[in-house]
């Protein structure tokens, strides 16, 4: 060691040694185990090859299925298992030195009543919450409808169906302060026109055909489109080990499901259906006033899969739904006091509404390797609705449908260990067919249009007949870069619509970084993106009664947060978000084109051309929402007897501005201006930002579920939310008009026109809404299956929650009119005693 005589030489030697040894020092040793869930034991005597970027590391399993190996660094690796029958590849992460990694080589056989949980796609961590079917199927307060459980997740609020001034969402959900009509629902990536039937409680998807539901509440990936709110992605079941079925009856509806493997396990067929018979049950009790036929509906879901081999799969999906509702209020009155008649305010009115859709999807999936998959889907989709309304000066009678035939392609390619690429495109031929006439509100700032005012009608009738064909194309791509614990997922999509010759480009990106040091791992994430939505099935885009230039509604979404995995079961997720809405479609009484055909077809012969032809709708609206969410979850393994639950809390604010002229803010509003002056004035809108009608400041849900024994399961849910804002009624119009059908004076409510008053639009809130629900399930097991009896008690502590104000237009404004409008989760006995709402049901599974 003569050459190591100086301290400098010593240092050089030490550094060189470190350099040579560094690969050894940084190598990660771990123990692996191949484990068969079917055999419930390790797999002995197999060769495992661990594929690293630079080499292939072989290992051999011992009698218990264990093997020892070293890899260069922590990260994601492919384990190639060599069997006499072929090669199996499994992806797994090595997250710590000395870790014992279990590689499950197959799936657990499905127990009775359980479901398969298939391998999950790699999905974004940002603004996404996932619920499993077994977590939500028996959730209290959902009236047996799994989709209702989404309301317990952060940022999700289901407005009351007829909630005073705020009603009208009708089964929709408000996601992070976005309008409830701007969400997209997908079932296996196929479109659903509406998620809920007319009773707004039951969905159009059979519970037992749901595997998982993912809800994207913020910046969602590029493969989804047409939502400035959120995306609800429902994944269906894909396989069955044996033929099973279920039958479920309740007061509201009956539903049945059957699924079976076919062709020696190569195929799979599942069919489910629902029939609502509220008109036969509640409708025959005499509690419903004469003239109302409660909603009738039915829906069906069919799925067929055939696997030619491991590379080629063909599937066919059919989804249908049909809903109908009729009201024909008697014209006269049976009693001496017309105000006591239940339908006095709308005497003579008739409403017949129907809607439905049919979705057919034929899908071919080609998976030549674990690194490449391509999917082609031929889609035939037809949503439609029929409306026939006669109510004072409101008259509408039309049938509308917007069918399309489309071809969609979705490719997933994993060219390297650090990159995965999603690439997709779609082309559609869309028809927009509408026949009949409808009405629209003349002044969008009029908070109390009077349907019986025939001298200066608040509504105008117009022929909306139109038949248009258009093409629509889209393309998207997302790059998923993974460098160790760092993930970067940039993506972009472009949507182009021939109708109006317009397109929308939406770039987006998500970043995440996982730190392994704290407990089971901490992930920091953030993302943003531009999103667009086009109202394909809306009067606003009509050439006859709307604006054919209407552009995509836009939203820019930002979000970021931390996900802390505390144990294998416990996790906490916190997220901050902001959303900016632009180009929102609003009713605009000023926007016009210089000249055009008279929109009133009845006058077209005498006056064929008009100047300043109204377009009625524009993209002037803007808005924003922001807030934060906290989600604490205790998971359990599927079908285990462990308890599960979560706490979700959301704080948010949401505002809107329609950016059109509003006389309430104009000190010179009494001066009548010429048309030219009005149009010029409207270029400089004076409307102010107001609280969004579905703004919810605080949302809190606590969910708990526990399978106590083989026979019993219990669940509880406590739910709290701030009230939605409302506009108080401050008087009436003095009863200027009468309903001609029963000569009853119609007292039209009056609202504040003073924007600086505390009574102005959306400036009040009722008391917060909260309730506690429980559900008790009893299972009776038989050789052929089981019977599940359940009792659901909603609003256990009988709180009289208020949804809004209820004004009776058959009486003048007074201290008792309006009165608070309660929800229907309290029942009053004949002796006046209040009891909670309850629901009993039975499910038979064979």
């Amino acid at each position, binding site marked *: 060691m003569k050459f190591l005589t100086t301290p400098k030489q010593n240092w050089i030697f030490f550094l060189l040694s470190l350099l040579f040894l560094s690969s050894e020092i940084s190598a990660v040793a771990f123990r692996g185990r191949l484990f068969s869930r079917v055999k419930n034991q390790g797999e002995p005597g197999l060769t495992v090859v661990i594929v690293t970027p630079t080499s292939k590391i072989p290992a051999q399993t011992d009698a218990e299925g264990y093997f020892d190996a070293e890899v260069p660094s922590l990260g994601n690796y492919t384990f190639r298992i060599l069997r006499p029958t072929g090669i199996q590849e499994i992806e797994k992460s090595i997250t710590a030195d000395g870790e014992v990694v279990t590689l499950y080589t197959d799936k657990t056989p499905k127990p009775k009543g359980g479901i398969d949980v298939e391998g999950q796609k790699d999905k974004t961590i940002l603004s996404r919450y996932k619920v499993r079917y077994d977590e939500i199927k028996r959730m209290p307060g959902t009236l047996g409808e799994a989709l209702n459980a989404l309301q317990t997740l952060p940022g999700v609020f289901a407005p009351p169906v007829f909630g005073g001034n705020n009603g009208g969402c009708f089964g929709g959900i408000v996601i992070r302060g976005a309008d409830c009509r701007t969400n997209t629902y997908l079932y296996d990536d196929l479109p659903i026109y509406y998620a809920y039937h007319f009773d707004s409680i039951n969905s159009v998807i059979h519970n037992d055909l749901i595997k998982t539901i993912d809800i994207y509440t913020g910046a969602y990936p590029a493969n989804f489109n047409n939502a400035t709110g959120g995306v609800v992605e429902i994944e269906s079941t894909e396989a069955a080990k044996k033929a099973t079925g279920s039958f479920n009856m309740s007061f509201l509806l009956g539903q049945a499901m059957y699924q079976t493997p076919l062709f020696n396990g190569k195929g799979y067929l599942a069919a489910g259906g629902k029939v609502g018979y509220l008109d036969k049950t509640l409708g025959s009790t005499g509690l419903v006033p004469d003239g109302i036929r409660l909603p009738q509906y039915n829906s069906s879901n069919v799925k067929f899969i055939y696997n030619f081999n491991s590379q080629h799969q063909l599937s066919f999906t059919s989804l249908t739904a049909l809903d109908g509702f009729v009201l024909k209020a008697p014209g006269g009155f049976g009693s001496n006091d017309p105000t006591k008649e239940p339908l006095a305010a709308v005497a003579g009115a008739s409403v017949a509404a129907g809607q439905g859709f049919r979705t057919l999807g034929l899908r071919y999936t080609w998976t030549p390797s674990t690194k490449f998959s391509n999917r082609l889907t031929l889609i035939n989709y037809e949503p439609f609705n029929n409306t026939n309304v006669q109510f004072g000066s409101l008259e509408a009678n039309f049938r509308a449908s917007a069918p399309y035939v489309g071809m969609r392609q979705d490719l997933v390619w994993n060219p390297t260990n650090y990159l995965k690429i999603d690439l997709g495109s779609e082309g559609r031929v869309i028809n927009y067919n509408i026949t009949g006439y409808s009405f629209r509100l003349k002044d969008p700032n009029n908070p109390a249009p009077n349907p019986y005012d025939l001298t200066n009608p608040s509504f105008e009738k117009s022929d909306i007949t139109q038949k248009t064909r258009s093409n629509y194309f889209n393309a998207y791509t997302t790059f998923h870069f993974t460098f160790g614990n760092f993930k970067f997922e940039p993506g972009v999509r472009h949507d182009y619509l021939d109708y109006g010759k317009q397109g929308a480009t939406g770039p987006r990106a998500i970043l995440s970084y996982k730190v392994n040091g704290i407990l089971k791992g901490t992930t920091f994430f953030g993302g943003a993106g531009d999103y667009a939505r086009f109202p394909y099935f809306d009067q606003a885009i009509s050439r006859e009664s709307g604006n054919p230039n209407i552009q995509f509604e836009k939203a820019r979404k930002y979000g970021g947060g931390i996900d802390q995995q505390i144990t294998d079961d416990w996790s906490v997720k916190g997220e901050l978000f902001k959303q900016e809405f632009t180009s929102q479609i609003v009713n605009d009484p000023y926007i016009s084109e210089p000249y055009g055909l008279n929109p009133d077809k009845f006058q077209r012969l005498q006056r064929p051309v008009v100047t300043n032809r109204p377009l009625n709708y524009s993209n002037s609206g803007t808005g924003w929402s922001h807030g934060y969410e906290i989600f604490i979850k205790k998971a359990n393994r599927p079908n285990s007897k462990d308890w599960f639950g979560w706490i979700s809390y959301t704080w948010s604010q949401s505002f809107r501005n329609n950016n059109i002229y509003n006389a309430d803010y104009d000190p010179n509003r009494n001066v009548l201006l010429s048309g030219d002056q009005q*149009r010029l004035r409207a270029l400089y809108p004076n409307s102010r930002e107001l609280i969004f009608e579905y703004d919810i400041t605080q949302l809190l849900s606590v969910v708990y579920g526990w399978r106590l024994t083989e026979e019993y399961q219990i669940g509880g849910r406590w739910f709290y939310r701030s009230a939605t804002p409302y506009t108080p009624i401050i008087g009436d119009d003095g009863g200027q008009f009468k309903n001609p059908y029963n000569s009853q004076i119609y007292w039209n409510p009056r609202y504040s026109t003073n924007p600086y008053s505390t009574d102005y639009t959306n400036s009040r809130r009722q008391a917060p809404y909260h309730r506690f629900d429980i559900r008790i399930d009893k299972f009776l097991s038989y050789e052929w299956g089981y019977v599940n009896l359940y009792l659901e008690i909603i609003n256990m502590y009988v709180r009289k929650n208020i949804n809004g104000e209820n004004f009776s237009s058959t009486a003048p404004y007074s201290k008792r009119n309006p009165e608070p409008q309660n929800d229907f989760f309290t029942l009053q006995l004949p002796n006046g005693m209040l009891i909670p709402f309850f629901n009993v049901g039975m499910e038979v599974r064979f």
Partner: protein
Amino acid sequence: MLVRIILLLSLLFQITCAQKNEKSYQDLYALRILLETATKPKPNPQAACIDAMRSAEACIATAPEFQSGTLTENSYSLISSSNRFTTYSDLCANNLYMYPLPANFVTNNSDAVRECYFKCDSSYWKTRKNLNTCNGTVAIMTTGIFNDSGTTTCKRNCSSSVNNTP
């Protein structure tokens, strides 16, 4: 005038550029409204009122109440102002007209609306004159202003932001 021409050319240039830059329909709409406003003369209700009075005079002069050539600006002004004014200019400046105007006519209507109303009335009288229907009584012909559908539509157009008759 020069300023107006420059503004007009500037707006035309903007419209051309806007189309090239694929501006939204709302931007194009705004430019159109600005262009229309820029090219319209400033409203002059006084002049329109005088013109309406002259048009009325031309028709009413042949009414049975008046002998030929007896109705002049002086006499019609005196009749319409209860002997206070002798010229249409003074008459109109004092919110007087061929028929009683509402007391708050000036404060509740913009210059453009008032001018438009007077023009509608003027058009009514000129139409009667052209059709040779000026032989009715003054009362019947003046009341006709309120019953004539063309004049009613014309006045509706004055304050309607959309759906106007060409």
